[in-house]
């Protein structure tokens, strides 16, 4: 941790510097335009301060985004529609539900694929094909179809999340459940062990490192799914809605703050899984 501190902060610093410089370049056109109309030529320092403080800049600078996030989280009641926490919770609940469903579906499919040759041959190609369909095209259809049968709100978004998140779990768990080597399987055979027992005592524990790696990818995919699921609902609520509304009204600062919040949310969720992974695998003696 300590070792990586210097390189990581160096990279962050470089990004921030490039960001501020890029903001000057990208926002200067608007600043010059306004100055020209006011017939008031800009000095360099005026230019810089203008490009870093526009209301609808092409590229908002970090401190603008930070202050927007501060205003929409700390300074708002969390139940308010202006609160980013409220929107974040809407997205998070769909993400978590979709992640749970996707993980469940993924594990069930993987168990079937590992134990049944027929499923291995028939299901796996469909699992892969499912991910080649652009989710952005499928999402509105899922929303519309489910709405037609009276299902709306959290569940349709969760299903889109599930659609994206079950895939890494299937792939990872198939590999994980097949991780025991020939010797370990022979060993079980010498004890005349049934398939269910082999699963619980050998396959499932062996798959744990694969499961956690898959869960991290699934969680990130799940968040993307929830956000995508919020776009066709007419920008009512959620981080996806904030992104869409922001782009309708040219509120770039709002877009970026929703974007940063989504990224932070993903980072926290993935880090939590990483923590669970560390604890579990250490306890299982698989992290040495």
């Amino acid at each position, binding site marked *: 941790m300590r070792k990586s501190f210097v390189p990581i902060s160096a990279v962050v610093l470089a990004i921030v510097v490039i960001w501020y410089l890029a903001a000057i370049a990208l926002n200067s056109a608007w600043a010059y335009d306004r100055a020209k109309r006011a017939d008031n030529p800009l000095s360099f320092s005026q230019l810089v301060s203008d490009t870093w403080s526009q209301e609808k800049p092409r590229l908002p600078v970090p401190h603008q985004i930070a202050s927007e996030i501060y205003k929409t989280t700390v300074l708002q009641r969390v139940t308010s529609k202006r609160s980013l926490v409220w929107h974040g919770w809407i997205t998070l609940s769909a993400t978590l539900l979709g992640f749970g469903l996707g993980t469940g579906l993924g594990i069930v499919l993987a168990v079937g694929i590992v134990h049944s040759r027929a499923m291995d041959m028939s299901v796996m190609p469909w699992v892969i094909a499912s991910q080649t369909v652009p989710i952005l095209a499928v999402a509105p259809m899922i929303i519309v179809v489910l709405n037609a049968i009276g299902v709306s709100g959290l569940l349709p978004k969760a299903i889109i999340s599930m659609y994206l998140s079950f895939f890494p779990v299937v792939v990872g768990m198939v590999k994980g459940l097949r991780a025991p080597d020939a010797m*370990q399987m022979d*060993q*079980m*055979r010498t*004890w*005349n062990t049934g398939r269910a027992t082999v699963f619980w005592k*050998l396959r499932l524990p062996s798959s744990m490192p694969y499961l956690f790696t898959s869960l991290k990818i699934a969680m990130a995919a799940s968040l993307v799914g929830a956000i995508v699921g919020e776009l066709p609902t007419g920008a009512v609520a959620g981080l996806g809605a904030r992104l869409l509304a922001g782009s309708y009204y040219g509120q770039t600062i709002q877009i970026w703050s929703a974007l940063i919040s989504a990224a932070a949310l993903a980072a926290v969720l993935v880090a939590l899984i990483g923590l669970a992974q560390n604890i579990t695998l250490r*306890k299982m003696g698989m992290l*040495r």
Partner: protein
Amino acid sequence: MVSKDTIIHTEHLNLTFQTSDGPVHALSDINLSIERGEFVSFIGPSGCGKTTLLRVMADLEKPTGGTATVNGVSPEEARKARAYGYVFQAAGLYPWRTVGGNIRLPLEIMGYDKAEQSARVAKVLELVELTGFDKKFPWQLSGGMQQRASIARALAFDADILFMDEPFGALDEIVRDHLNEQLLHLWERTNKTIVFVTHSIPEAVYLSTKIVVMSPRPGRIADIIHSNLPKERPLEIRDTPEFLEIAARVRHGLRTGHEDG
């Protein structure tokens, strides 16, 4: 030929593997009888089929010709009756289970009750001189200790036969000597029939009452040597003329097997 003390018996046993390079004749006309309480070693160069023969007896491979019986029944029935313990080249302990938990694994699978499990774990740990290590995890043990734990695991349930496939192959010479000595003690105390695969001449001669010398292409028995060494064998026995004479005969068998092949 088949007496009531015959535990394992094979007649004209053949096994041909179909590979992409064509058929490989792994075992050719194997005729062998193993009596109750014997310590039999299979020795030979790699590719001679010694491990394959052991795996046929354990029903991990199916022969393509001839017959094999274990405890008077087919290897499959014997395996289903849990008639043998099998020790592999690697200890193969589960890292998520303690040493005791690993030894308990076959007992759980076979449905022994909790009290019985604990009693048996304690007993076999004592047999392999690992008393007090049941709460340790495999990574806390040396390679030799791990292999001893895996032997304990194979001894934990009531099987009269112990199959061992180069169990000490990955260990250094000093550890190996020690484990060989321990294994003889264990054999004496448990009265098991042990079938042991090795490629070390001193190991085979030191341990065995019967040495089956095998040669490759096709895998076959080149010589069967009955050892007249006493049951009580200190390590120093390896310097006696009797020992060296048997070792010379094994070496001769290996060499002629190679020349024919």
